[in-house]
């Protein structure tokens, strides 16, 4: 990444908390504070907070906004009402994944799309180029702070009532106006809190004062990998399709959207390769880019803090994709055995 790195409104808080900072998607972001494993366990056992203010927020408003989003996004927005949210994909004509995102629906044909930081510009450009009359797409990423508060005790610590997953509501936390979204990227109970950028520091202070442990991108990655949430740029890209990636459930193949014909074809013919989850049977840690014998490749790999072994995801020939299938990874020149498991890799109460 050339040039100056951007900073979120919480940069000074990260520095004073002793975070180790790394470049990520053009931002200088905390990868860890006390340690990845400790932070990971805090989220599984209690409550952690992640600064995800680097993520993109795009407003899509207007009388034709819903019809437009139905044309460009894979999932069926008609399935959600005001105050609800949906995981969906922005697909290209070949069925490739430009980005995966969460669409939040508000009253009066207004939508908020929360997109990956590294794809923010690409998604904005994609939508702007196709924006029809009666729809306005606006990149508001720099107007908001976004905190993910995740863990079995997250709602309790924030003093929030239970609410269904994939819903959102305006609320207040210790005097700060927030949009409370029951979404996350850890597989745990939790919320994402969106606030005015100027309130981000106060919100961070309020959330940490309530006992949420500051967590970095390192734990965010191991948490999402244990529950097999794909990471765009690793497991899904413009060169991979949703059906092969196991994201067919987020594609309404009965409606018309960009790339639907290509996806229907993959579904009909069956994917040549599938994105699978696997665990190592030997001591070794899989890493992105490692070859899997027989024509596969690791797309994400790490050490599972909950299971204490190497885990990963990768594309393998469809014939090797069933749970139990044995895999051999090339770990820097050494063959290491693994086997395919049903997703998610980690389930609560099985560690």
């Amino acid at each position, binding site marked *: 990444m050339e040039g100056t790195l951007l900073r979120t409104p919480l940069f000074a808080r990260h520095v004073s908390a002793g975070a*180790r900072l790394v470049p990520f998607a053009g931002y200088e972001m905390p*990868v*860890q504070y006390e*340690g*990845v*494993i400790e932070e990971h366990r805090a989220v599984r056992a209690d409550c952690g907070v992640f600064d995800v203010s680097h993520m993109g927020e795009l407003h899509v408003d207007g009388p034709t906004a819903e019809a437009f989003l139905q044309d460009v996004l894979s999932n069926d927005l008609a399935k959600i009402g005001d105050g609800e949210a949906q995981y969906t994909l922005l697909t290209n004509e070949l069925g490739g994944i430009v980005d995966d995102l969460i669409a939040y629906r508000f009253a009066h044909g207004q939508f908020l799309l929360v997109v990956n930081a590294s794809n923010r510009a690409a998604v904005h450009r994609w939508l702007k180029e196709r924006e029809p009359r009666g729809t306005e797409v606006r990149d508001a990423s720099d107007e908001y702070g976004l905190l993910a508060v995740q863990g079995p005790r997250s709602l309790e610590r924030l003093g929030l009532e239970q609410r269904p997953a994939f819903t959102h509501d305006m609320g207040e936390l210790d005097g700060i106006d927030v949009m409370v979204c029951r979404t996350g990227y850890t597989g745990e109970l939790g919320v994402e809190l969106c606030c005015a950028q100027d309130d981000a520091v106060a919100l961070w202070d309020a959330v940490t004062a309530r006992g949420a442990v500051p967590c970095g991108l*390192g734990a965010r990655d*191991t948490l999402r990998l244990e529950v097999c949430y794909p990471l765009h740029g690793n497991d899904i890209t413009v060169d991979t399709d949703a059906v092969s990636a196991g994201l067919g459930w987020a594609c309404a193949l009965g409606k018309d959207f960009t790339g639907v014909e290509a996806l229907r074809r993959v579904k009909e013919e069956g994917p040549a390769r599938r994105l699978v989850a696997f665990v190592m049977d030997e*001591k*070794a*840690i899989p*890493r992105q880019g490692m070859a899997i014998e027989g024509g596969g490749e690791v797309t994400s790999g*790490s*050490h599972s*803090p909950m299971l204490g072994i*190497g885990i990963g995801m990768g594309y393998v020939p469809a014939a090797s994709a069933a749970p139990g299938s044995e895999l051999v990874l090339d770990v*820097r020149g050494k063959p290491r055995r693994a086997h395919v498991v049903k997703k998610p890799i980690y389930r609560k109460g099985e560690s």
Partner: protein
Amino acid sequence: MPATESYPDDLRYHREHDWARIEGEEATFGITWFAQDALGELVHYEPAEVGSTVTRGSPCGEVESVKAVSDVIAPLSGEVLEVNQKAVDEPEVVNEDPYGEGWLVRVRLSDPDEVGELMDVEAYRAHVAEQ
């Protein structure tokens, strides 16, 4: 618990942040406090094989944290006599006690004159300060 920063003065150091404790014609190798701190909590140690030959300045194993893999660089040349099985089974011992229970390999030196090329603790502290 991770160890606090220290660099014992009875060790010799290699610029790639490895240490050697020299005992006659044999030496024990490990990684320094600085190296384990930069890597973070270790979760895997892939040692060189017992009986293999290691060469000064070349890899003699790998250590991995959640986020990264790093070669262990041999500070001196020789034949591997023993690998620390505890570091293989519980790599976090390297974070907890990098100069003691977290040692990595014991080697029979093939060229004891190489010792003169390693840094003493003063030189290594200065090297760390420049990082």
